[in-house]
């Protein structure tokens, strides 16, 4: 009966339809999974953006005062008229400081046998010292590869003694200039050529290069000249008289720390006070030349008695790294006195007497180099740390850009 009741149904053909529906279902499932994944990723991204934009927690984040990336950072010891200062390691402790590797080596002394510059031309000058031969001096030039060469010229002493100015080396490290009585002597280390340029006055004491490495400022007491050494592209006169200064070493370019202000060298041979940079520093006297890199100028001064740093046996001297930009801070490094002091005279050799020290140049954009008694030191402006560069066993020294490899 049941079979008879259902036997009039047509014969179906469901195989193809079922298979096709299965394929479509499978395709739809894959699509759903894919859309679900994309939606999940989108939700996660939107949630992450929302969290980052909410900002409630970020606004309460106080950045640490000490940059976390610079683990060597030393906090400044205080402020003088709003400028951070650090106190340098005491004299006698230089040997125990971390060392800054340079072509000068661990101890800079006069080499024994030096080849003539004509036989061994140099690429860039790292340092210049003078070989004292009684009444004559011979320049010895140290290249960036730590090799020595002797210039084929004999120099006479000047009024102040050795004819070596700390600004002797040109900014490109190729030429060294020496003040001589009544003339300027230049040595090209690539070609070993020596030029002698006559000066209008006899008493020449200081040289300082302009940044273009073509012109050099030559100065004596109260007089100064701009001398064209290289090729002139703008028809400059070979020798132009400019404004002089009582202290010949003060005549520097492009900046000059002098008279309680930063002075900027102008193309006409004048210096103008950078009005925004009036310095309120306790300067008794500036010492040595000003050396500039980018927007920062460095020079050493002998200070009046500093209430911030008490000294008993020495006059405090300060390396000033003054920024010409408002956004960049200026910094001071005070050369104090030995930590252990006694009244016995044996301590006197360790005291940094006025005149012992001066800025020599820059190792890189953040590291001025300066000379103290028997040592050349480097001061890292970013971290505040002082490192030793070399022990000095020579009388005078001028630094060139070849010191930085």
């Amino acid at each position, binding site marked *: *009966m*049941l079979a008879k009741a259902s036997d009039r149904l047509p014969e179906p053909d469901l195989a193809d339809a079922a*298979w096709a529906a*299965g394929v479509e279902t499978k395709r739809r499932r894959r699509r759903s999974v894919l859309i679900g994944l994309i939606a999940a990723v989108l939700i996660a991204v939107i949630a992450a953006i929302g969290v980052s934009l909410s900002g409630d927690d970020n606004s309460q984040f106080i950045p640490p005062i000490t940059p976390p990336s610079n683990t060597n950072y030393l906090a400044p010891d205080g402020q003088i008229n709003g400028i951070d200062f650090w106190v340098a390691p005491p004299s006698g402790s230089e040997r125990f400081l971390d060392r800054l590797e340079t072509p000068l080596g661990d101890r800079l002394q006069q080499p024994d046998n030096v080849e003539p510059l004509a036989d061994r031309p140099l690429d860039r000058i790292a340092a210049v010292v003078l070989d004292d031969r009684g009444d004559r001096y011979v320049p010895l030039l140290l290249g960036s590869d730590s090799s020595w060469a002797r210039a084929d010229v004999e120099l006479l002493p000047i009024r102040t003694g050795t004819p070596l100015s700390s600004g002797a080396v040109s900014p490109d490290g190729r030429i060294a200039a020496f003040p001589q009585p009544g003339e300027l002597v230049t040595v090209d280390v690539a070609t070993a050529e020596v030029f002698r340029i006559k000066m209008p006055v006899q008493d020449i004491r200081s040289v300082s290069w302009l940044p273009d490495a073509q012109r050099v400022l030559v100065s004596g007491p109260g007089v100064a000249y701009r001398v064209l050494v290289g090729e002139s592209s703008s028809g400059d006169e070979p020798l132009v008289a400019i404004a002089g200064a009582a202290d010949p070493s003060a005549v520097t370019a492009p900046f000059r720390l002098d008279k309680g202000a930063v002075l900027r060298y102008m193309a006409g041979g004048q210096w103008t006070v950078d009005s925004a940079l009036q310095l309120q520093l306790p300067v008794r006297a500036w010492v040595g030349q000003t050396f500039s890199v980018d927007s920062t100028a460095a020079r050493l001064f002998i200070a009046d008695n500093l209430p911030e740093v008490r000294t008993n046996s020495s006059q405090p001297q300060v390396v000033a790294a003054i920024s010409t930009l408002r956004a960049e801070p200026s910094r001071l490094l005070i050369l104090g006195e030995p930590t252990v002091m006694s009244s016995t005279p044996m301590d006197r050799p360790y005291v940094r007497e006025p005149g012992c020290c001066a800025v020599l140049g820059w190792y890189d954009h953040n590291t001025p180099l300066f000379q103290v008694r028997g040592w050349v030191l480097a001061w890292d402006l970013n971290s505040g740390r002082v490192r030793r560069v070399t022990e000095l066993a020579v009388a005078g020294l001028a630094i060139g850009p070849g010191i930085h490899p």
Partner: protein
Amino acid sequence: MHETVDPDFASYVDARQGRWLRTAYLVYGDPERAEDALLHAFTRLALRWTRVDDPDVFVQRLLYQPALNRWSRVKAFPDEDDPVKLALAELTPAQRTVFVLLHLEELTEFEVADMLNMSHQTVHGHGMSAFSRFRTALGGGDWRDSPRDSARDRARDIGGGDQR
């Protein structure tokens, strides 16, 4: 899963679709619902073809379990005047499903219980009450009053045994 139909799947469906469609027709009381249910069951089988241990049980569970929905208000065999179909329409969906599987598919009560996810006692109860109501609807008396051999013959007549 290939785009073209698997030959084994096609031969499997061809061999069973006619019989299962007739059974589903009597279970659902509607040829369109029966065909839809069978197509759905075969589609699910196509998705898992070669991974199903017993395809017959797999398809039949999918085919008959939806008919047990007690909330379905769809009337079976509307606009029919065949007394057999009208008698089937008198049964509940569960009674009709058990009754058709027992007497048309000739499954045992245990097989039906496994297929419909019911206990054996439930299947037995549905089978007995459906048999009684079916007989009554066709004008027969209580089968328990009939001699034993006569009752067995009537049961064979319900399934239409010699016709298959």
